Each structure stands twice: as C-alpha cells, then as structure tokens.
C-alpha cells in the first residue's frame, strides 16, 4: 500500500472521525455514509466509549456501516426517538450533519431555499436542527464546497443556531451552542477565528487556501500562514474503514471516487 492509495472519501472519513476525539462517553451521530463511517472509525480506534447506532433505533456494540449486513449486530441498548431527545438535551452527544446551506456564523439550513411562505425549493423542514444546535457539540460535512452551500449572507432559513449576536436577545447564544468542525471535499475548518470566525485548519492534499476561499461566500480565517495538510488516513485506519464499510458505500459519495491526494492526479 503506497502512501497515496487512499480516496478522497477515506480522507474525509478520517477527518470526520477526528471530531469525536476526546469527547468522552457521548452519543456519536454521523448523518450520511462518510460521517457515519467516521464515527465508527473513531469508536474502533481512539474513542472506544462513544455510542453509535445501527442507523435506526439500536445502540450497537460495534459500529454498523451503511448498506447490507452479513449478520445482525450485537445491540447494547435502545436509542428510540424519545431517548434520542433525552440524550441530546443532556448535552452528551456530538452530531456530524450535512446541511444544505451554512453561513459565516455557522447558521445552517435544511428547510427551504427562498421565501419560507412560498419557497423556491422546499426540503425537509427543520427536523431536530434547532434543538441540536443549542444543546450539544455539532460538526458539519459538505460534499461540495461551493458558494451555494457556503452562502454570502445568512442562510435562507436558520434551522441551526450559530454565532450571530443579532439573533440573541442578550447578544449571547445559550451555553450549549458549541460548533466544532466543518469537513468538506476541500478542507477542514473550525470556528476558531476571531469572534468564532470560520477558519481553515487543514487543506486536503493539493488544495489551496485560495481555492477554498473562492468557493466560499464569506471571508475565511487561517489557522496559520502555512495551513497544514489534512492528515492522510493511516494504513491501520484504512483497514478499519474497510471493515466498517464492506459494501464500499464510501466509493459512491464523490463522483468517480477521486483519490485523496489530488497532487497525485
């Protein structure tokens, strides 16, 4: 296995896994194949205490990847709907979700594009985003880093609260608001800039800051003048990823399943 033999999906999975490092014993929810496999990777390596589900209603002893299963996993507990709220309101959860839009404040949208009363595009509805956002840590995954996702102004309908002082009657978000990381097809970002400004903390191999900035509707901060490269998944991580995702669903997320290191392309 050469150093470059990992896909962009696998790079993203490893970056997703990192969000659950040092979280303690929390419910780890990864929405979509790559975040879900990422949660599994975290659990099988550096965060064994996190609780992951089968994607439906059970906490399982081992991570369950997307797609068909060869055998029934061992269930360690019930994660029914009521209990998910009990867990999330307690703060003992970290979700990695995939909104349609996000803005400079970390405000995120899955409800509508356009006017809420008569939208250009009606999507899911707010789901649990409002409660998640002010109760427990949240991170984000965007498969297509562009200005339609990273919008210039505010998102069209704020489903997830963010660091926008104008949205709070006392200027301060509830103390549960804790936005952590944004993983995209180009880079990894966090909210560690001045006043929670979104900043690039690593660039995927072969991606430049300018490329990221050009595809983002608002100015980004940098963790350093020289932004690190997103760490390649280790051989051990690639093995664990293959174990969690035997159906290779990860290969279907990005068009043509590109290599993780685009310098090699």
């Amino acid at each position, binding site marked *: 296995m050469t150093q470059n033999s990992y896909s962009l999906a696998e790079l993203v999975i490893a970056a997703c896994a990192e969000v659950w490092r040092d979280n303690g014993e929390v419910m780890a929810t990864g929405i979509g194949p790559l975040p879900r496999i990422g949660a599994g990777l975290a659990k099988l390596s550096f965060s064994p205490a996190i609780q992951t589900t089968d994607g439906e209603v059970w906490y399982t002893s081992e991570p369950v990847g997307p797609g068909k299963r060869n055998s029934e996993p061992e269930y360690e507990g019930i994660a029914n*709907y009521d209990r998910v709220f009990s867990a999330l309101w307690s703060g003992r959860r970290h979700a990695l979700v995939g909104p349609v839009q996000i803005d400079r404040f970390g405000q995120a949208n899955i409800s509508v594009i356009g006017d*809420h009363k008569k939208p250009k595009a009606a999507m899911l509805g707010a789901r649990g985003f409002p409660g998640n956002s*002010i109760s427990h840590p949240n991170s984000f995954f965007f498969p297509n880093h562009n200005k339609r996702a990273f919008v210039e102004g505010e998102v069209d309908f704020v489903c997830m609260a963010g660091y926008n002082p104008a949205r709070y009657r006392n200027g301060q978000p509830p103390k549960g608001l804790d936005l952590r990381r944004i993983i995209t097809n180009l880079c990894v970002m966090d909210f560690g800039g001045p006043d929670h400004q979104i900043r690039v903390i690593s660039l995927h191999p072969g991606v430049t800051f300018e490329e990221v900035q050009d595809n983002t509707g608002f100015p980004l901060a940098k963790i350093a003048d020289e932004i690190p490269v997103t760490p390649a998944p280790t051989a051990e991580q690639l093995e664990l990823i293959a174990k969690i995702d035997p159906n290779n669903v990860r290969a279907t997320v990005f068009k043509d399943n590109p290599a993780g290191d685009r310098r090699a392309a």
Partner: protein
Amino acid sequence: MLDKRMTVDDIVGQLSDGMTIGIGGWATRRKPMALIRAIARSNLKDLTLMAGYGGMDIGMLAATGKIRKLVFAFASLDHFPLEPHFRNARQAGAFEVLELDEGMYHWGLRAGAMKLPFLPTRVGIGTDIINQSGFDFKFVKSPYEDGEEFVAMPALVPDVALIHAHRSDERGNLLNLSVDPIFDELLVRAAGKSYATVEKIVTTAELDMKKNSRYNLVERTMINGVAEAPLGAHPSSAAPDYQLDLKHIKTYVESAASPEAWAEYKAKFIDVSEADYQTAIGGEEAVKQLPVPIY
C-alpha cells in the same frame, strides 16, 4: 360492557371542516394511512394538520387540498428524503405552515397532555423557527437566580388525534408492538379526542397484558374509538406485523411528477374501498412478506 368499536368511516365522520387533526407515527412508520385515505376522499376541508414527524400523511392530504395549515418539524419518506407532494404544495404556497423543531413538537404535546399553556425550552433560540408568521412566540424568564430567558413553547392541542396501533380490545386497551412507540402517547394525551386504527381487535385476554405491559400505549380512558383496519398503516410500516413498502412508496413518489400521474395514483389507491386498496397492493400475503429495510 364498554364497546368502542367503530369503522374507519365512522372515525372520519367524527371530523369536521376546520378541525385541528394530530397524526401519530413517524415518516414511514405507523402512519394511520387507512384514515388518511378516507379523509383524502371525504369532503372535509380547511384542516389544520399537526404532523410533527410527517410523511405521506402530509403529502396525501396536501395533494388532495385538505390542508389549510400545517404544523410540522419535517416531511420525509426517509429512504426518499423529500416528500414530493408536500414539496409541490409548499412551493405553490398552498397552505400556511408552522415549522417546529422535532423536540419542540413533542414538548408542545407534553404541555397539552399536562394541560399547561406552555413549557419553557431553549430550543428555537437563535433560529428562524421563532420568527415565523405562523405563531407569535413569547418568552419566559426563569424567576430564580439564573434569570435565563426561554422560549415559551405553546401547548399543542389537536381537536382529534389519529393513530395506528397493532392490537386493541373492544374497550380501547391498546398495544403498540413497535420497538419504538415514537410520541403517540403524548399526542393522544394532548388531544381532545383520540381514535386508533389497529391491525386487529382481539379479546382483552388475548392482549396478554401481563407480558405486554410495556407495549400498552396509553390507558383506555384516553381512547374514544377503535377501528379494525388490517394493513391500515400501509405503505408505511407497522413492524413487527409488516414492514414499509418501498416499491409502493416509489410509485407514490413518482405520482408527484404530473397532475396526470397523481390522478392515476388517486384513482387506483385512494378513491377506492380499503378492500380494493388491499387487492391493488397485492393482498395481505404480499405485505406481510415485505423485507426489513436497511438504514
């Protein structure tokens, strides 16, 4: 003895124009679809639909023009993330909406169940949920030292709740045998009246309550009527009795492509008796053999 048995049409006969109707279940799980179909083919109009965890219940009543206002947190067919008829109607501005967080929705039901006008929550703060024209959200301040300010989630109080369960006796003692009961209990407690369709009405002894106590959804005093409606949740699931019907859901999704496609679906699957519906979907045999879906 107490006998609460009714037909599906009897239940729909209890509804009237302008009512607020709460629907149980979740997206593609235990939606009271026999009742939804009966409402869709009725003359009822101007309904306020409370369907926090919505699926085809919202879509079908949207497509048949029954909804004046929708209170919801999402509309989805899960494996097909977007509910196409909901989508068409929303994009046409066909009805008012009050969009809520999923947790706010059941918190509002809990307020209703407890006969409280509101319950405090942080949920909604910082979002557009509390800036909608659909409701003027008020705030409430903790009277203790912390002095924190909360959204006052108003009680959700449907005039009538409609749910689907697995078993009932004549008196309305219910079993919901699903792994996850969702929030049907709170919905029933919040509503003025509640009606349930069930897969099968059995004797009280056959409920085997001693074994099934944790599946007893709610006490019978909260249930005003029960109707036997086998496969009454189809094409959503009533597991463990049967799973969701992904093929049928796909047909339903495709029916949103054009007025003609919808007319065809409606003629075949809504404007027919439940008996004919069951024949159209391949009969009980076929439904009971539907595979367990993968999530």
